[in-house]
Structures are given as structure tokens and as C-alpha cells.
């Protein structure tokens, strides 16, 4: 079934994801905790302390809930954040190391195990860097201060006379020393670490960073290249079965009848039915799939009508909630300015549904023991899924443990825990551990999608070619980066909901890509109407200094004025810029139009990006390179095709994601701006790619492609 109830929650991650989850309040005994964390560890919390504390509100979290001092000189740090390839494991380790004054290899980071870690909120919205890095830094800085104070008390000296380096506290005059490992043996540490982390603890300024600001590799990368690391789909429990779930024949279809006998007659197969839920479990996924296939053939379904991808944009427009239910943001009078304008342009842009398609589809292994449920799964919000499972099975949250091992990609596509629930349902009935691994076709069909969009733009130019009116409405995709950064006196900006036939949700930078595609393409159209160079036209209307800096840097490096002079009907250049999640980006691209093969080939991308002080340059480079290449997919080829409630291209053979051959020459300019707080860098670098390509295509062909993906749209017009 399509869970439309998810839609709002998924669409507005900025709002709902930051809502604090209720305390999970798991009570662990001292002994249990020792067993969980391994030997050689001094427990710095006493029995009865709640581990599942809220981490977002630093003031309420105790130092003990954030970190533990170990007798071997290492420090265990705990976070609810999830590693799915974007680098939180390195940067949170760096954050702790920085404030504890130790090298990063002394940090043992435990991530995303609801029994052990505080609730740091769902991993989404580029929030790890601006929210959780500071939270970990405050916890670590508080710990360092408390430990220094303990040493000072022991030596009966002033804490100001002590210096901390490499985990060694030294009295500057007597050169007396004590290490963190020594202090780990002291009972006093347990006592002082009960203190809450103050929100105003002083952290290390950027100019003195030693760990932060460096290219620390992902701490478990050796385990990745040797495959010692186990992903959510790699958990095999004793006596475990593999489960396969019956999927509706189309969206919204309900099961009327099914004959389970064929599967029930198969040796070693167990069939579970609970209303609409039907699953088969067997000792191998091959056998489970065979059993499911046998009964799926006997199922009879009641289907509902469902719009197709061919009519999606008219459907969204027809159902747009623009009739006053959504309020536009306005300044000046856009109506009057449009009436007064020398030239008015009015255009509509479209963006297709696309999917994240992380390499690892949804997967979970569930195990019930003594009325308690443990699930290993790949989701962005461990505590959120813990809560969902507790509600589903009528359990208190402390009876559900969700563990998220570093997982195989997400890009905003794993906010929900379907596989966890399915595995848990089967495991509960069968009374054995069960793994449910979604197939690629299931992921393509039953996960959720980046929303499609219809974007209506109107712009007015005065007789000097200045932009005086801006009317911008996004139907269905959402409000991320919908505001224009350009200086326009009269504006009306609206994000209007609609009736999405597909289940939709977060995606790397979500609606910011659609909104930037429309806005930056339309800015190019306005520049052309004003007879201005696209770069000059933007700069004339741009006050935001941070965007100006990246735009000018990219244009300079790309040699924009000269490259623009060399444009031919086969070779175009284009640029675009934008801001989202407190970071700024600009891209210049060169495209080649291959009329024979019907291809838009992106030859070169030069992108400048700035997200404040850079925490990990190598990882940020990976993120920017990844965003650029990922962005090529929905810009050129990716689109979900559907008809009669069925996805028609639910496989990599038909849904064409970028591959090695698609990778352009990529030049990345990372700008390190140290006088503001760090922002996340894993999303915004994607938003400038599609419009820069559209603008380059226009430069070469004179054809304005207003629909993503652009490749087929262009060749329909050529």
C-alpha cells in the first residue's frame, strides 16, 4: 500500500526531522553495558542512567551519555548518526579528537545503536555538520575540562596551570603528568561525567584546529576494502530464515484472495498471512522467492485507477493547491510590476520523479528474544524506526533495539523502516530470526521518490533590462531553496502541494534541485531577453557576497568570457548558481550535442562550493564530485515511468543512472570561509548542475529545454 501519511513528514525534513524524538530511555545495567562495549573499559555511568538520551539539546545530555574514557587510553564516543557514505564517522571522530586533544585514532565511535547512543536526530538535511559536530565538540570539551579539573584537585593546583596534549594532562611548572588512561581508573570520573553538557562550553577556534580541517580518511575504510565490515544486508543470525513479501500487483491494489497451499506444501517453507500482509520464509532466499512466486500467481487483487507518467504534469497542475490553501511569500507588488514591465516572460518547467537507488536496497534482520526485538537495518533514523516498531508491535521503546551498521547509501531515500517491520513481523510469527532483503525492483517500486514538479515562472524586465518582477510557483516538489537570492523588488513565491500519485519524500537536497533548475534556467531566459551575458546579468542582481564569490571563482577558473565566445551549434557553455542549507555553489559546464546519437554529453564541469570552515577537505571533495555526477542522471536521463499503478522501468537496465563513461572532466574549487560556522556539504553541490546544463544546451542549440530529464526532451525538439 502507498502510505500517503508519510508524505508530509518526508517532504519537509527541515521541519519535522529536527523535532526532538521522545526519550527512548533504555535502562542498561552496568554489567550489560560492559558486555556491549567490550572489556578494558571503565564504565563512567552508574546503574540506572538512561543512555537513550536526547543529543540534540546539548544541555540535557550528560557527558557520560556522549563519551566514555577507556583504560587503554582510547575514548568511546556515541552518536545516533548513521554512516551511509557521506563522512559523519570521520568528522564526528575528528570533532571529539579536537576537543579532547587526542589524535583521531584514539576515538572509538559507536553509531546508531539505540541501546547505546543518544538520539541525535535522523541523519538528513545536511545537519550532522552544523548540529551534531558542535554537539560532540561540546561534550568532548566538557569532558576535557572536567578531567583537567580532577587532575588539578588531585594535585591541589589551579586548573589554569594545566595543559592537555595527546591525552596527557601536564602541570606546566612541575611537569607532573597524568593521562586519560590513568584517570579512566578513577571512580571520580564516573561521578563528574554525570554532569550535563553545558550549551556554552568554549570550543577550539578554527585557527587552532588540529584534527578538524584535515583530510582524515573514513576510520573503517580498511574494513570496507577487505569486506570485513558487515552492511545491514550482511547479518546472518543462527537458525535464520530469509523472507520474501508479497507485493500488491499495482499501487493501491488490495488483496481479495490468495491460495497459500502451494507454498505451504513446500519443504522448509513457512508462510505467514496477516490480512494484507503475506510473506514466505525459507532457509534460502532462492527458496523463499520460489514459494512466493507460486502463491503470487493465485492472488486476486482489487485495483484502483492511477495516473500515468505521461499525464503526470497535467495531473499535478490540475490538483495543485494554489487556491489560497498555501500562502505565497510576497514583497512589493508583483502584479503591478508585471503590468509596468517593458518585457514579460512566462514559462513553465517540469521535473520528473526520480529515485535514489542506493547500491544497497532496503534490508533488515530481525530477532525476537524474551519479548524483546532486535533489528539490524539500514535506515537514516534509528530512534524513529525504533519508535515505529514499538508502536507496530505494541511494545515500549526499551524493548526494541535498532542497530544501523554503516550502510550502502541512502541519499535521503532511507528515512523509513519497511524492511525492518517486515522482517520483524515474520520473525515474530516464526519465532526464528528472519532477514528481508529487498530486490532492486522492490526498491524501485516500493521505496519512495523525489517529487515531480511543475514550476510556473513569470518575470518582468524594465526598459534598462533590470529584473523588477518575479512570480514563482512550485507545484508538488516543495519549498527548499524556492526563494530567489537575486535582488528583485517585487516578488511572489509559492510552494503549492498537489496530489502525488507516487509516494514521495526526501532526496539529496530535495526540491532545491527543481527550484534551482527552474530559477537558474529562467534567469538565463531573462538575460537573453535583456540582451545581457548570463554571468553579468546574475551579478547585476546579486548582493549575496558568498554566492558572488563562488560564481566569480567558477567563472574565472572556467574562463567564462572566452569559452562563451567559442560556442558552436555542437558545443555550448552554461552556468548556474544557488544557495541552500547555508552553503553556496556555482557551476560552469561545457556540453557537446551529438545529434546523430541523440545525446547531450557533458564534457566538463567546473564547480565552486563554499560551506564555511572545511572540516574534512578530502571528504568534502568526494561529496562535491559525487553530487556533480549524481546530478547528471536526473538532469539528462533518469525518470520514473509508470502506468496503471506499475513502475515500467524498475531496473538499472531501463533506468539509466550515471556510469564511468558519463563522468565529465570535473574541476572542484573548495572555498574555505573560516569566519562563519561550518555547514554540511553533501547536498547543495547537486543543485547547480541541471540548470547549468540546460543553459549550455540553449547556448549551443538555441532550444530552451524546460523539462528534466533533458536529453529526450531536447531531441524531441531538435
Amino acid at each position, binding site marked *: 500500500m502507498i502510505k500517503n501519511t508519510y508524505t508530509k513528514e518526508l517532504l519537509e525534513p527541515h521541519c519535522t526531522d529536527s523535532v526532538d524524538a521522545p526519550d527512548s530511555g533504555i535502562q542498561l545495567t552496568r554489567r550489560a553495558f560492559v558486555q556491549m562495549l567490550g572489556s578494558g573499559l571503565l564504565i563512567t555511568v552508574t546503574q540506572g542512567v538512561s543512555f537513550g538520551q536526547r543529543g540534540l539539546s546539548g544541555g540535557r545530555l550528560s557527558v557520560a551519555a556522549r563519551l566514555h574514557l577507556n583504560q587503554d587510553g582510547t575514548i568511546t564516543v556515541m552518536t545516533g548518526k548513521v554512516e551511509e557514505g557521506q563522512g559523519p564517522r570521520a568528522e564526528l571522530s575528528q570533532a571529539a579528537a579536537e576537543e579532547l586533544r587526542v589524535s583521531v585514532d584514539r576515538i572509538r565511535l559507536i553509531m546508531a545503536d539505540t541501546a547505546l547512543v543518544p538520539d541525535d536526530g535522523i541523519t538528513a538535511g545536511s545537519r550532522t555538520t552544523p548540529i551534531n559536530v558542535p554537539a560532540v565538540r561540546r561534550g568532548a570539551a566538557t569532558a576535557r575540562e572536567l578531567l583537567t579539573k580532577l587532575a588539578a584537585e588531585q594535585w591541589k593546583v589551579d586548573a589554569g596551570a594545566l595543559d592537555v596534549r595527546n591525552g596527557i594532562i601536564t602541570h606546566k611548572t612541575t611537569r607532573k603528568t597524568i593521562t586519560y588512561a590513568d584517570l579512566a581508573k578513577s571512580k571520580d570520573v564516573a561521578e563528574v561525567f554525570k554532569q550535563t553538557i553545558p550549551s556554552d562550553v568554549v570550543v577550539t577556534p578554527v585557527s587552532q584546529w588540529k584534527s578538524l580541517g584535515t583530510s582524515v580518511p*573514513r576510520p573503517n575504510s580498511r574494513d570496507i576494502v577487505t569486506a570485513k565490515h558487515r552492511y545491514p544486508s550482511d547479518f546472518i543470525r543462527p537458525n535464520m530464515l530469509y523472507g520474501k513479501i508479497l507485493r500488491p500487483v499495482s499501487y493501491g491494489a488490495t488483496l481479495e484472495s490468495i491460495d497459500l497451499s502451494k507454498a505451504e506444501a513446500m519443504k522448509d517453507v513457512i508462510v505467514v498471512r496477516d490480512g494484507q500482509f503475506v510473506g514466505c520464509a525459507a532457509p534460502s532466499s532462492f527458496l523463499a522467492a520460489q514459494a512466493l512466486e507460486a502463491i503470487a500467481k493465485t492472488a486476486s487483487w482489487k485495483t484502483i485507477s492511477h495516473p500515468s507518467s505521461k499525464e503526470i504534469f497535467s495531473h499535478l497542475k490540475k490538483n495543485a493547491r494554489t487556491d489560497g490553501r498555501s500562502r505565497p511569500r510576497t514583497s512589493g507588488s508583483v502584479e503591478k510590476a508585471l503590468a509596468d514591465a517593458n518585457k514579460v516572460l512566462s514559462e513553465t518547467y517540469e521535473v520528473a520523479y526520480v529515485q535514489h537507488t542506493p547500491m544497497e536496497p532496503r534490508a533488515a534482520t530481525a530477532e525476537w528474544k524474551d519479548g524483546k526485538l532486535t533489528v539490524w537495518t539500514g535506515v537514516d533514523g534509528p530512534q524513529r524506526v525504533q519508535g515505529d516498531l514499538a508502536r507496530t508491535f505494541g511494545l515500549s521503546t526499551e524493548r526494541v533495539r535498532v542497530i544501523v551498521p554503516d550502510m550502502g547509501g541512502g541519499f535521503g531515500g532511507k528515512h523509513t523502516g519497511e524492511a525492518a517491520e517486515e522482517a520483524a513481523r515474520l520473525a515474530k510469527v516464526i519465532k526464528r530470526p528472519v532477514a528481508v532483503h529487498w530486490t*532492486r525492483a522492490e526498491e524501485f517500486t516500493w521505496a519512495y521518490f523525489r517529487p515531480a514538479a511543475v514550476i510556473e515562472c513569470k518575470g518582468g524586465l524594465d526598459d534598462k533590462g533590470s529584473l523588477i518582477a518575479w512570480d514563482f510557483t512550485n507545484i508538488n516538489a516543495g519549498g527548499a531553496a524556492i526563494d530567489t537570492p537575486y535582488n528583485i523588488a517585487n516578488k511572489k513565491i509559492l510552494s503549492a502541494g498537489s496530489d502525488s500519485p507516487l509516494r514521495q519524500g526526501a532526496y539529496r537536497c530535495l526540491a532545491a534541485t527543481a527550484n534551482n533548475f527552474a530559477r537558474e534556467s529562467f534567469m538565463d531566459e531573462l538575460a537573453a531577453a535583456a540582451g545581457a551575458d548570463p554571468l553579468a546579468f546574475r551579478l547585476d542582481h546579486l548582493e549575496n557576497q558568498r554566492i558572488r564569490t563562488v560564481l566569480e571563482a567558477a567563472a574565472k577558473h572556467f574562463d567564462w568570457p572566452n569559452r562563451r565566445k567559442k560556442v558552436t551549434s555542437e558545443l555550448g557553455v552554461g552556468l548556474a548558481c544557488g544557495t541552500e542549507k547555508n552553503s553556496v555553489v556555482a557551476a560552469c559546464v561545457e556540453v557537446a550535442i551529438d545529434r546523430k546519437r541523440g545525446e547531450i554529453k557533458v564534457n566538463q564541469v567546473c564547480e565552486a562550493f563554499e560551506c564555511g570552515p572545511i572540516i574534512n577537505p578530502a571528504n568534502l571533495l568526494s561529496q562535491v564530485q559525487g553530487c556533480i555526477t549524481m546530478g547528471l542522471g536526473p538532469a539528462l536521463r533518469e525518470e520514473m515511468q509508470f502506468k496503471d499503478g506499475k513502475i515500467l522501468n524498475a531496473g538499472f537496465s531501463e533506468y539509466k543512472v550515471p556510469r564511468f563513461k558519463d563522468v565529465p572532466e570535473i574541476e572542484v574549487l573548495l572555498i574555505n570561509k573560516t569566519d562563519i560556522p561550518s555547514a554540511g556539504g553533501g547536498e547543495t553541490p547537486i543543485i547547480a548542475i541541471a540548470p547549468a546544463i540546460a543553459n549550455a544546451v540553449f547556448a549551443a542549440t538555441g532550444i530552451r529545454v524546460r523539462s528534466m530529464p533533458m536529453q529526450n526532451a531536447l531531441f524531441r525538439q531538435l
Partner: protein
Amino acid sequence: MDTKITLIVNGNKRTVVTDPARSLLDVLREEFHLTGTKYGCGEGQCGACTVLMDGKKILSCITPVARADKKKITTIEGFAEGDSLHPVQQAFLDEGAIQCGYCTSGMILAAAALLKNNPKPTDKQITEWMNGNICRCNGYTKILNAVRRAAAQIAEVKIP
């Protein structure tokens, strides 16, 4: 009808009695618990399931296990020698060519198979050969660098 199938996996003789149509990927993961070989698409389109059969790269998700009978199979688990990484693994580490890492074992095996036959490939040859392997983090730029690095550093790439 279940059949007895014998494989030489990473130098060890392994026997399984199973449906001959079952994929080699499933047998490696579910019977031998060698989970380093990944499921990505089930249709031979993404390369996450790449293993080597008698030294040649194959896609284990679309290879019926019967076809691997009595063959030598190398998976990522057989690549490092004790604590010493295979040079291609080391090149991926050195270039930081890992984001989520789920495609990494397939990438490493595909790259090793390329370099074994063509120790000094051109960029075009690398791109051509690796094009069957998808990285959805889109870390292709650094993966290319890793393959280039391995090619530059190693005179002869051996397959364990």
C-alpha cells in the same frame, strides 16, 4: 532437483547441495557466509556482485551456481594475504576511493581483473572496462584515480 556442486572458493574446496539454478551470489553469501560479494540489481547491470571465476570477472548474480561447478572462485575475502592488502585494495585506500563502500568489492575485483590482463591500461580502456560497475555515491572520479594508481605502482597484478 538439488545437485552436489563443488567450488574452489579462495583456495578452499567447498561443497554444496542445492538447486543448480540458484545464483552463485546466493550460494556465496547464504551458504558460505562470504557476504563481501554484494547484491545490487540481480540482473547483471551494476557489478556489485563481481567475482573472479578462473581469474576472469563474472557477475555472480546472474551466474547459476551449476556453471561454477569445479571452478576456482575468488571473492574479496580472498584478496588480502593476512594483514597485507592486495595492491588494488591498497590503491583504493590510498585514494580514499570509498564513500558508502557497498560497490567497493566489485570495483576492486573488476579492476584487478583488468590490470592482470592489461597492466598499463589507458583511461579509455579503464572507463570501458569498469563501465559495468555502478557507484551510486558517484565516486567515479576517485575510483578512476585508484585504478590509475594501482596501474602505475604495480608491474604485475596477481589474482590470488
